[in-house]
């Protein structure tokens, strides 16, 4: 057991025990003191859909979930496809967000997948990656040009891997459940095709593709093979794709509707194996807030997506209990791994690093309760779950931004 000293927002010293007098002492006995968790895939909805989430509320939810940095996707309204929106997000975050907010810039103008956004200007305004997330770039020529263009700016492209033509109006995994429910299916091949294409384009251009929220056995297989050939790719997986299947949709509950859809037990097994073998680099929440206006409607009409910031840590911690990951691998996939992919100087407790810290009790039993969420939206698929792992504090740049 060691003590950690924070001074001037940086990690100053780690020793056992620290001696002296201190302004503030946190007793983290029997807890894990980890680098601040990073969510590399968050939707903050501001500007445009502030009734779902704002930069302020999303950041609060993040802190409560143990996240000290969040990376917000470009599909706001208007989308973050120009430096003025990026600057707005950065300014708003500076004033109102209690955690670090890193914007992702759009790949194409208006997320239309046709013309490149001003990627250079987006980078200079502060974007850390480029993505049309939510709108897969179907035109391979555009994707290729974006990858070529990004190489110059050393920005990774985050790809939402679904062939939208093949998805069509499919809204849940194609299989027995979609057949029984009479809901149109989205075959896992829609993901497989795009993962294969993006691997080919990463290989062709030498640029980096990060594949968001992979959900299928096929994706894990393809990414594993490509990594063996040293193709510059990485990928993330969400808590919901790891712990829920299309069986959950049985009651037409729209809290189980997202893109890509919940898959089968076979896919979950492959995702877990992919984590164990380090084929899957990182976790990400894909926190996608929607209000009742978008969710409390017929399944076909409902918006895609679920929130995740305030449930992600205890849900994914199950993987440690299941012996899929060690505790330090678990922490790495929420910290160092996303930091590396996005080239953020975060995710570490090294002396001199920013004092972004997550403290959690891995043994404490908690009941996930949507009424306690600080997010503006309540669309969680995990309401009522009992898990182990309570976030006790989140510290950002030496400042306690959340504590129990």
């Amino acid at each position, binding site marked *: 057991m060691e003590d950690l000293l924070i001074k001037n927002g940086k990690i100053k010293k780690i020793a056992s025990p620290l001696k002296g007098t201190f302004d503030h002492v946190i007793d983290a006995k029997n807890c894990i003191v980890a680098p601040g968790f990073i969510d590399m895939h968050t939707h903050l909805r501001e500007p445009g859909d502030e009734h779902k989430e704002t930069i302020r509320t999303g950041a609060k939810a993040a802190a409560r979930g143990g996240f000290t940095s969040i990376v917000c996707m470009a599909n706001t309204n208007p989308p973050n496809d120009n430096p003025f929106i990026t600057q707005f997000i950065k300014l708003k975050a500076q004033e109102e967000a209690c955690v670090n907010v890193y914007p992702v810039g759009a790949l194409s*103008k208006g997320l239309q997948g*046709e*013309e*490149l*956004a*001003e*990627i*250079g*200007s987006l980078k200079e305004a502060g974007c850390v990656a480029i993505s049309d997330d939510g709108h897969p770039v179907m035109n391979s*020529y*555009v994707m290729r*040009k974006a990858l*070529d*263009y990004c*190489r*110059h700016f050393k920005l990774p492209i985050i790809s939402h891997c679904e062939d939208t033509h093949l998805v069509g109006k499919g809204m849940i995994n194609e299989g027995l459940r979609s057949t029984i429910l009479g809901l149109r299916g989205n075959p896992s091949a829609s993901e497989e095709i795009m993962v294969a294409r993006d691997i080919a384009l990463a290989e062709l*251009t030498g640029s980096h593709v990060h594949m968001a929220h992979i959900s299928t056995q096929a994706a894990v297989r393809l990414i594993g093979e490509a990594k063996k050939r040293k193709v510059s790719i990485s990928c993330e997986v969400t808590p919901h794709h790891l712990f829920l299947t299309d069986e959950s949709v049985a009651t037409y509950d729209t809290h189980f509707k997202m893109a890509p859809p919940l898959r089968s037990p076979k896919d979950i097994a492959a995702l877990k194996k992919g984590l164990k073998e380090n084929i899957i680099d990182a976790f990400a929440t894909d926190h996608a807030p929607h209000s009742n206006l978008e969710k409390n409607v017929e399944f076909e009409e409902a918006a895609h997506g679920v929130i995740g910031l305030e449930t992600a840590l205890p849900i994914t911690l199950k993987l440690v209990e299941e012996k899929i990951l060690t505790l330090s691998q678990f922490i790495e996939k929420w910290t160092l791994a996303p930091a590396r992919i996005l080239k953020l100087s975060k995710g570490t407790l090294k002396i001199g690093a920013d004092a972004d810290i997550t403290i959690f009790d891995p043994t404490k039993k908690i009941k996930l309760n949507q009424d306690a969420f600080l997010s503006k939206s309540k669309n969680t698929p995990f309401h009522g779950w009992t898990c182990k792992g309570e976030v006790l504090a989140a510290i950002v740049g030496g400042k306690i931004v959340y504590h129990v």
Partner: protein
Amino acid sequence: MFTIEEAKGKISGLKILIVGDIAHSRVARSNIYGLKKMGAQLIVCGPPTLIPPAMTKLGVEVSHNLKASIQKADVIMMLRIQEERQDRIQFPSKKEYVQYFGLNSETLKLAKKDVIIMHPGPLNRGVEISPDVADGRFTH
């Protein structure tokens, strides 16, 4: 080549920077073959989308950073964006192209004092070359 010979008194050993739409340029290809034969070193510079992937196999250096490359050059050759030859998107906007690959008096401050600037024409003033540079004292 005659202009370079006339201005510099030699071609051999010079560093010649060709900037812009390398992919669609016949000028760039002719110059690469000709000037290399005469002993010059070639650097081509532009966004990765406008430089063919196998360019280095022609024995030229590839750069995507105009400001860095300009400092090494004895001769800067600016090419225009050949919109009539380009298929769809190659870069986000002319504004962003100018920001990174346009030659203006500010970027030119980084160049050697005796640099010469060439352009095969027609010029797109305000795109690959700013008007003050186009009509300036380094231009040949």
